[in-house]
Protein backbone atom coordinates (compact mmCIF):
# COMPACT_ATOMS: atom_id res chain seq x y z
CA UNK A 1 0.00 0.00 0.00
CA UNK A 2 1.43 3.27 -0.98
CA UNK A 3 0.93 5.98 1.52
CA UNK A 4 0.08 9.44 0.41
CA UNK A 5 3.13 11.50 1.20
CA UNK A 6 2.54 14.64 3.09
CA UNK A 7 4.45 17.44 1.50
CA UNK A 8 7.09 18.72 3.90
CA UNK A 9 6.55 22.31 4.65
CA UNK A 10 9.43 24.62 5.34
CA UNK A 11 9.77 25.94 8.88
CA UNK A 12 11.25 29.17 7.66
CA UNK A 13 9.15 32.22 8.37
CA UNK A 14 9.46 35.52 6.71
CA UNK A 15 10.76 37.86 9.38
CA UNK A 16 10.41 41.06 7.42
CA UNK A 17 6.97 41.94 8.69
CA UNK A 18 7.91 41.31 12.30
CA UNK A 19 11.03 43.38 11.85
CA UNK A 20 8.95 46.21 10.47
CA UNK A 21 6.63 46.19 13.46
CA UNK A 22 9.53 45.98 15.91
CA UNK A 23 11.25 48.97 14.47
CA UNK A 24 8.06 50.96 14.18
CA UNK A 25 7.48 50.46 17.90
CA UNK A 26 11.11 51.18 18.58
CA UNK A 27 11.02 54.52 16.83
CA UNK A 28 7.80 55.40 18.63
CA UNK A 29 9.33 54.73 22.03
CA UNK A 30 12.56 56.50 21.19
CA UNK A 31 10.63 59.58 20.20
CA UNK A 32 8.36 59.57 23.23
CA UNK A 33 11.10 58.98 25.78
CA UNK A 34 12.13 62.00 27.72
CA UNK A 35 15.31 61.47 29.57
CA UNK A 36 15.63 63.06 32.93
CA UNK A 37 18.04 65.94 32.81
CA UNK A 38 20.91 65.29 35.14
CA UNK A 39 20.06 66.97 38.37
CA UNK A 40 22.41 68.83 40.63
CA UNK A 41 20.60 67.51 43.68
CA UNK A 42 20.31 63.76 43.75
CA UNK A 43 16.93 62.71 45.13
CA UNK A 44 15.26 59.31 45.10
CA UNK A 45 11.57 59.87 45.53
CA UNK A 46 9.29 57.40 47.27
CA UNK A 47 6.47 55.82 45.31
CA UNK A 48 2.76 56.34 45.76
CA UNK A 49 -0.48 55.31 44.10
CA UNK A 50 -1.19 58.90 43.06
CA UNK A 51 -1.85 58.93 39.35
CA UNK A 52 -1.79 62.62 38.54
CA UNK A 53 1.28 63.61 36.59
CA UNK A 54 3.36 66.31 38.27
CA UNK A 55 3.40 69.66 36.48
CA UNK A 56 6.69 70.17 34.70
CA UNK A 57 6.71 73.86 34.00
CA UNK A 58 6.02 77.01 35.90
CA UNK A 59 6.36 75.33 39.27
CA UNK A 60 7.90 76.22 42.59
CA UNK A 61 9.78 73.22 43.90
CA UNK A 62 11.12 72.59 47.36
CA UNK A 63 13.60 69.74 47.43
CA UNK A 64 14.73 67.83 50.49
CA UNK A 65 17.80 65.71 49.88
CA UNK A 66 18.87 62.61 51.79
CA UNK A 67 20.68 64.62 54.44
CA UNK A 68 17.63 66.77 55.06
CA UNK A 69 19.03 69.81 53.29
CA UNK A 70 16.43 72.02 51.67
CA UNK A 71 16.68 73.63 48.24
CA UNK A 72 14.30 75.94 46.43
CA UNK A 73 13.70 75.97 42.69
CA UNK A 74 11.59 78.59 40.98
CA UNK A 75 10.92 77.64 37.40
CA UNK A 76 9.72 81.00 36.13
CA UNK A 77 12.57 83.47 35.57
CA UNK A 78 10.33 86.53 35.91
CA UNK A 79 9.23 85.33 39.31
CA UNK A 80 12.84 84.73 40.29
CA UNK A 81 13.54 88.37 39.59
CA UNK A 82 10.55 89.46 41.68
CA UNK A 83 11.66 87.24 44.55
CA UNK A 84 15.22 88.57 44.43
CA UNK A 85 14.01 92.16 44.39
CA UNK A 86 11.63 91.69 47.28
CA UNK A 87 14.30 89.94 49.35
CA UNK A 88 16.72 92.75 48.58
CA UNK A 89 14.29 95.34 49.87
CA UNK A 90 12.98 93.46 52.91
CA UNK A 91 16.17 91.80 54.07
CA UNK A 92 18.70 94.13 52.49
CA UNK A 93 20.69 91.22 51.15
CA UNK A 94 22.26 92.87 48.13
CA UNK A 95 21.59 89.90 45.85
CA UNK A 96 22.91 90.16 42.32
CA UNK A 97 19.56 89.91 40.55
CA UNK A 98 21.01 88.86 37.19
CA UNK A 99 22.94 86.03 38.77
CA UNK A 100 19.96 84.98 40.85
CA UNK A 101 17.85 84.91 37.73
CA UNK A 102 20.34 82.60 36.06
CA UNK A 103 20.65 80.22 39.00
CA UNK A 104 18.45 77.15 38.56
CA UNK A 105 18.01 76.69 42.29
CA UNK A 106 18.99 78.21 45.61
CA UNK A 107 20.49 76.29 48.46
CA UNK A 108 22.22 78.55 50.93
CA UNK A 109 21.45 80.60 53.97
CA UNK A 110 20.92 84.33 53.52
CA UNK A 111 24.42 85.04 54.81
CA UNK A 112 25.95 82.59 52.37
CA UNK A 113 23.78 83.53 49.42
CA UNK A 114 26.22 85.84 47.69
CA UNK A 115 29.07 83.34 47.87
CA UNK A 116 26.63 80.70 46.61
CA UNK A 117 25.80 82.85 43.60
CA UNK A 118 29.46 83.55 42.87
CA UNK A 119 30.11 79.83 42.32
CA UNK A 120 29.56 78.71 38.74
CA UNK A 121 26.39 76.79 37.93
CA UNK A 122 28.20 73.49 37.24
CA UNK A 123 29.88 73.52 40.60
CA UNK A 124 26.70 73.94 42.58
CA UNK A 125 26.14 70.38 43.65
CA UNK A 126 23.74 69.23 46.31
CA UNK A 127 26.33 67.34 48.33
CA UNK A 128 28.57 70.38 48.83
CA UNK A 129 25.92 72.97 49.52
CA UNK A 130 24.45 73.66 52.92
CA UNK A 131 20.85 74.16 51.86
CA UNK A 132 18.34 76.67 53.17
CA UNK A 133 18.24 76.43 56.95
CA UNK A 134 14.77 75.40 58.09
CA UNK A 135 15.08 72.62 60.65
CA UNK A 136 15.12 75.01 63.55
CA UNK A 137 11.85 76.69 64.38
CA UNK A 138 13.64 79.85 65.49
CA UNK A 139 15.78 80.16 62.39
CA UNK A 140 13.52 78.98 59.57
CA UNK A 141 14.68 80.95 56.54
CA UNK A 142 12.37 79.05 54.24
CA UNK A 143 9.52 81.01 55.83
CA UNK A 144 11.00 84.21 54.40
CA UNK A 145 11.64 82.58 51.05
CA UNK A 146 8.09 81.29 50.79
CA UNK A 147 6.76 84.68 51.79
CA UNK A 148 8.69 86.27 48.93
CA UNK A 149 7.50 83.57 46.55
CA UNK A 150 3.93 84.04 47.72
CA UNK A 151 4.18 87.75 47.02
CA UNK A 152 5.64 87.13 43.58
CA UNK A 153 2.78 84.80 42.76
CA UNK A 154 0.11 87.05 44.29
CA UNK A 155 -3.10 86.56 42.38
CA UNK A 156 -1.64 83.92 40.08
CA UNK A 157 -1.97 80.20 40.50
CA UNK A 158 1.10 78.61 42.00
CA UNK A 159 2.04 74.97 41.54
CA UNK A 160 3.91 74.21 44.71
CA UNK A 161 5.78 70.93 44.66
CA UNK A 162 7.64 69.14 47.38
CA UNK A 163 10.20 66.56 46.42
CA UNK A 164 11.78 64.61 49.20
CA UNK A 165 14.31 61.85 49.38
CA UNK A 166 13.38 58.49 50.86
CA UNK A 167 16.00 58.86 53.55
CA UNK A 168 15.31 62.45 54.56
CA UNK A 169 14.43 62.65 58.22
CA UNK A 170 11.08 63.97 59.35
CA UNK A 171 12.31 67.15 61.10
CA UNK A 172 13.34 68.76 57.82
CA UNK A 173 10.00 67.79 56.28
CA UNK A 174 8.31 69.32 59.28
CA UNK A 175 10.39 72.49 58.90
CA UNK A 176 9.16 72.79 55.32
CA UNK A 177 5.56 72.19 56.40
CA UNK A 178 5.92 74.87 59.05
CA UNK A 179 7.23 77.30 56.45
CA UNK A 180 4.22 76.56 54.24
CA UNK A 181 1.75 76.86 57.08
CA UNK A 182 3.16 80.15 58.29
CA UNK A 183 2.54 81.60 54.86
CA UNK A 184 -0.98 80.22 54.69
CA UNK A 185 -0.07 77.73 52.02
CA UNK A 186 -2.27 74.77 52.75
CA UNK A 187 -2.21 73.08 49.42
CA UNK A 188 0.77 71.53 47.77
CA UNK A 189 1.74 68.42 45.90
CA UNK A 190 4.40 65.88 46.62
CA UNK A 191 6.42 64.43 43.79
CA UNK A 192 6.47 60.64 43.84
CA UNK A 193 7.08 57.71 41.56
CA UNK A 194 3.98 56.02 40.26
CA UNK A 195 2.97 52.69 41.69
CA UNK A 196 -0.04 50.47 41.20
CA UNK A 197 -2.62 50.07 43.90
CA UNK A 198 -2.08 46.78 45.74
CA UNK A 199 -4.32 44.00 44.46
CA UNK A 200 -7.39 43.53 46.61
CA UNK A 201 -7.28 46.89 48.35
CA UNK A 202 -10.23 49.24 48.25
CA UNK A 203 -8.54 51.62 45.86
CA UNK A 204 -7.81 48.71 43.56
CA UNK A 205 -11.45 47.70 43.56
CA UNK A 206 -12.45 51.28 42.91
CA UNK A 207 -10.16 51.68 39.97
CA UNK A 208 -11.27 48.32 38.62
CA UNK A 209 -14.89 49.38 38.75
CA UNK A 210 -13.98 52.39 36.65
CA UNK A 211 -14.35 55.06 39.28
CA UNK A 212 -12.10 58.03 38.82
CA UNK A 213 -9.39 58.67 41.30
CA UNK A 214 -9.47 61.95 43.08
CA UNK A 215 -5.81 62.59 43.43
Amino acid at each position, binding site marked *: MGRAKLPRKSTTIDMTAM*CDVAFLLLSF*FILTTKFKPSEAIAVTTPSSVAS*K*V*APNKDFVLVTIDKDGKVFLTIDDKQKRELVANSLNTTKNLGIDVAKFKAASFVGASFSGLNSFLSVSEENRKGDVLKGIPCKDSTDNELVVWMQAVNEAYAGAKMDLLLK*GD*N*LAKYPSFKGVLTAFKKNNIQKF*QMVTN*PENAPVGSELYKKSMSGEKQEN
Partner: protein
Amino acid sequence: MAELDTSGGGHKKGPGVKKGKKLSTRVDLTPMVDLGFLLITFFIFTTTMSQPTAMKLLLPDDKVKPEEQNKAKESGALTILMGADNHIYYYEGQLKNDASNFLSASYNGENSIRDVILKKKAYVRSIATDPNDPEHDLVVVIKPSQYCNYKNVIDILDEMSINVVKKFALVDIFDIEEQLIKKSDESAVKP
Protein backbone atom coordinates in the same frame (compact mmCIF):
# COMPACT_ATOMS: atom_id res chain seq x y z
CA MET B 1 13.52 30.47 12.42
CA ALA B 2 14.36 32.25 9.30
CA GLU B 3 17.41 30.99 7.63
CA LEU B 4 19.47 32.04 4.77
CA ASP B 5 18.29 30.25 1.71
CA THR B 6 21.41 28.85 0.11
CA SER B 7 19.96 26.10 -1.96
CA GLY B 8 20.06 28.41 -4.89
CA GLY B 9 17.26 26.83 -6.82
CA GLY B 10 17.31 23.23 -7.77
CA HIS B 11 16.76 22.94 -11.48
CA LYS B 12 19.12 20.76 -13.28
CA LYS B 13 20.84 21.73 -16.36
CA GLY B 14 22.37 19.32 -18.73
CA PRO B 15 25.50 17.46 -17.84
CA GLY B 16 28.65 19.43 -18.11
CA VAL B 17 26.84 22.70 -17.84
CA LYS B 18 28.24 24.64 -14.96
CA LYS B 19 25.85 26.19 -12.54
CA GLY B 20 26.00 29.91 -12.44
CA LYS B 21 25.88 30.46 -8.70
CA LYS B 22 22.73 32.26 -7.85
CA LEU B 23 23.04 34.04 -4.53
CA SER B 24 19.83 34.52 -2.70
CA THR B 25 18.87 38.03 -1.73
CA ARG B 26 17.22 36.78 1.42
CA VAL B 27 18.81 37.83 4.67
CA ASP B 28 18.16 36.27 8.04
CA LEU B 29 16.28 38.93 9.97
CA THR B 30 16.08 37.11 13.31
CA PRO B 31 18.98 38.92 15.03
CA MET B 32 17.63 42.23 13.82
CA VAL B 33 14.22 41.49 15.30
CA ASP B 34 15.91 40.41 18.51
CA LEU B 35 17.80 43.65 18.73
CA GLY B 36 14.68 45.62 17.90
CA PHE B 37 12.68 44.09 20.71
CA LEU B 38 15.54 44.46 23.15
CA LEU B 39 15.62 48.18 22.47
CA ILE B 40 11.83 48.40 22.66
CA THR B 41 11.85 46.87 26.14
CA PHE B 42 14.55 49.30 27.17
CA PHE B 43 12.63 52.32 25.96
CA ILE B 44 9.35 51.11 27.41
CA PHE B 45 10.98 50.94 30.83
CA THR B 46 12.62 54.32 30.58
CA THR B 47 9.43 56.08 29.48
CA THR B 48 7.41 54.96 32.47
CA MET B 49 10.17 55.84 34.88
CA SER B 50 10.61 59.43 33.81
CA GLN B 51 7.04 60.45 34.60
CA PRO B 52 6.83 61.48 38.22
CA THR B 53 3.40 61.81 39.74
CA ALA B 54 2.18 64.26 42.30
CA MET B 55 0.33 63.50 45.46
CA LYS B 56 -1.90 66.20 46.86
CA LEU B 57 -1.83 67.11 50.51
CA LEU B 58 -3.94 69.64 52.29
CA LEU B 59 -2.62 71.02 55.52
CA PRO B 60 -4.91 72.03 58.34
CA ASP B 61 -5.00 75.67 59.31
CA ASP B 62 -3.17 76.14 62.58
CA LYS B 63 -4.79 79.46 63.28
CA VAL B 64 -8.26 78.06 63.72
CA LYS B 65 -9.29 78.23 67.36
CA PRO B 66 -9.38 74.91 69.18
CA GLU B 67 -13.13 75.21 69.77
CA GLU B 68 -13.79 75.46 66.05
CA GLN B 69 -11.67 72.52 65.10
CA ASN B 70 -13.16 69.22 64.18
CA LYS B 71 -13.36 66.96 67.13
CA ALA B 72 -12.66 63.31 66.66
CA LYS B 73 -14.78 60.69 68.33
CA GLU B 74 -12.74 58.42 70.50
CA SER B 75 -14.32 55.28 69.10
CA GLY B 76 -13.40 56.22 65.56
CA ALA B 77 -9.89 57.50 66.13
CA LEU B 78 -6.81 55.61 65.12
CA THR B 79 -3.41 57.09 65.78
CA ILE B 80 -0.43 55.90 63.80
CA LEU B 81 3.07 56.71 65.00
CA MET B 82 6.24 56.21 63.04
CA GLY B 83 9.59 55.46 64.64
CA ALA B 84 13.15 54.84 63.48
CA ASP B 85 14.17 52.00 61.14
CA ASN B 86 10.71 51.57 59.63
CA HIS B 87 9.08 50.80 62.96
CA ILE B 88 5.45 51.69 63.21
CA TYR B 89 3.10 51.85 66.15
CA TYR B 90 -0.55 52.57 66.63
CA TYR B 91 -3.22 52.95 69.23
CA GLU B 92 -6.97 53.24 69.07
CA GLY B 93 -8.88 55.99 70.77
CA GLN B 94 -6.84 57.68 73.42
CA LEU B 95 -3.50 56.53 74.72
CA LYS B 96 -3.99 54.84 78.07
CA ASN B 97 -1.86 55.94 80.96
CA ASP B 98 -0.11 52.60 81.22
CA ALA B 99 0.32 52.57 77.42
CA SER B 100 -1.31 49.15 77.24
CA ASN B 101 -3.01 49.97 73.95
CA PHE B 102 0.24 51.11 72.35
CA LEU B 103 0.84 48.39 69.78
CA SER B 104 3.35 47.84 67.05
CA ALA B 105 2.70 46.99 63.41
CA SER B 106 4.70 46.80 60.20
CA TYR B 107 4.56 48.48 56.81
CA ASN B 108 3.87 45.27 54.97
CA GLY B 109 3.67 41.57 55.52
CA GLU B 110 2.49 40.15 58.82
CA ASN B 111 0.52 42.46 61.06
CA SER B 112 0.64 45.24 58.49
CA ILE B 113 -0.74 48.69 59.14
CA ARG B 114 -3.14 48.15 56.26
CA ASP B 115 -4.83 45.34 58.15
CA VAL B 116 -5.03 47.56 61.21
CA ILE B 117 -6.68 50.33 59.22
CA LEU B 118 -9.11 47.92 57.57
CA LYS B 119 -10.02 46.37 60.89
CA LYS B 120 -10.65 49.80 62.35
CA LYS B 121 -12.72 50.70 59.33
CA ALA B 122 -14.84 47.60 59.70
CA TYR B 123 -15.30 48.38 63.38
CA VAL B 124 -16.38 51.96 62.71
CA ARG B 125 -18.82 50.70 60.11
CA SER B 126 -20.30 48.21 62.54
CA ILE B 127 -21.07 50.84 65.17
CA ALA B 128 -22.09 53.59 62.75
CA THR B 129 -25.34 55.36 63.47
CA ASP B 130 -25.80 57.06 60.14
CA PRO B 131 -26.37 54.46 57.44
CA ASN B 132 -25.73 56.96 54.65
CA ASP B 133 -22.24 57.78 55.83
CA PRO B 134 -21.00 54.80 57.82
CA GLU B 135 -17.40 55.94 57.86
CA HIS B 136 -18.14 59.39 59.19
CA ASP B 137 -16.44 58.82 62.52
CA LEU B 138 -13.25 57.31 61.19
CA VAL B 139 -10.31 59.64 61.70
CA VAL B 140 -6.72 58.57 61.29
CA VAL B 141 -4.19 60.70 63.08
CA ILE B 142 -0.66 60.44 61.73
CA LYS B 143 2.11 61.37 64.10
CA PRO B 144 5.60 61.07 62.68
CA SER B 145 8.40 61.13 65.23
CA GLN B 146 11.68 62.87 64.60
CA TYR B 147 13.36 59.51 63.96
CA CYS B 148 11.30 58.44 60.99
CA ASN B 149 12.10 59.42 57.43
CA TYR B 150 10.24 61.04 54.57
CA LYS B 151 9.48 57.73 52.90
CA ASN B 152 7.62 56.52 55.98
CA VAL B 153 5.42 59.61 55.95
CA ILE B 154 4.64 59.22 52.25
CA ASP B 155 3.97 55.51 52.71
CA ILE B 156 1.40 56.21 55.38
CA LEU B 157 -0.22 59.03 53.43
CA ASP B 158 -0.35 56.64 50.51
CA GLU B 159 -1.93 54.03 52.72
CA MET B 160 -4.71 56.55 53.34
CA SER B 161 -5.48 56.76 49.63
CA ILE B 162 -5.07 53.00 49.16
CA ASN B 163 -7.61 52.27 51.88
CA VAL B 164 -9.78 55.26 50.95
CA VAL B 165 -9.66 56.90 54.35
CA LYS B 166 -11.34 60.26 53.87
CA LYS B 167 -10.35 61.92 57.11
CA PHE B 168 -6.77 61.93 58.23
CA ALA B 169 -4.47 64.50 59.74
CA LEU B 170 -0.76 64.99 60.08
CA VAL B 171 -0.30 66.06 63.66
CA ASP B 172 2.67 66.97 65.84
CA ILE B 173 3.70 64.27 68.23
CA PHE B 174 3.47 64.55 72.02
CA ASP B 175 6.57 64.15 74.14
CA ILE B 176 5.19 61.15 75.95
CA GLU B 177 4.51 59.37 72.68
CA GLU B 178 7.95 60.18 71.42
CA GLN B 179 9.48 58.66 74.52
CA LEU B 180 7.36 55.55 74.10
CA ILE B 181 8.53 55.20 70.52
CA LYS B 182 12.13 55.63 71.53
CA LYS B 183 11.80 52.99 74.20
CA SER B 184 10.06 50.55 71.86
CA ASP B 185 12.61 51.19 69.12
CA GLU B 186 15.44 50.39 71.46
CA SER B 187 13.84 47.22 72.75
CA ALA B 188 13.06 46.13 69.19
CA VAL B 189 16.70 46.26 68.18
CA LYS B 190 17.72 43.88 70.93
CA PRO B 191 17.06 40.21 70.28
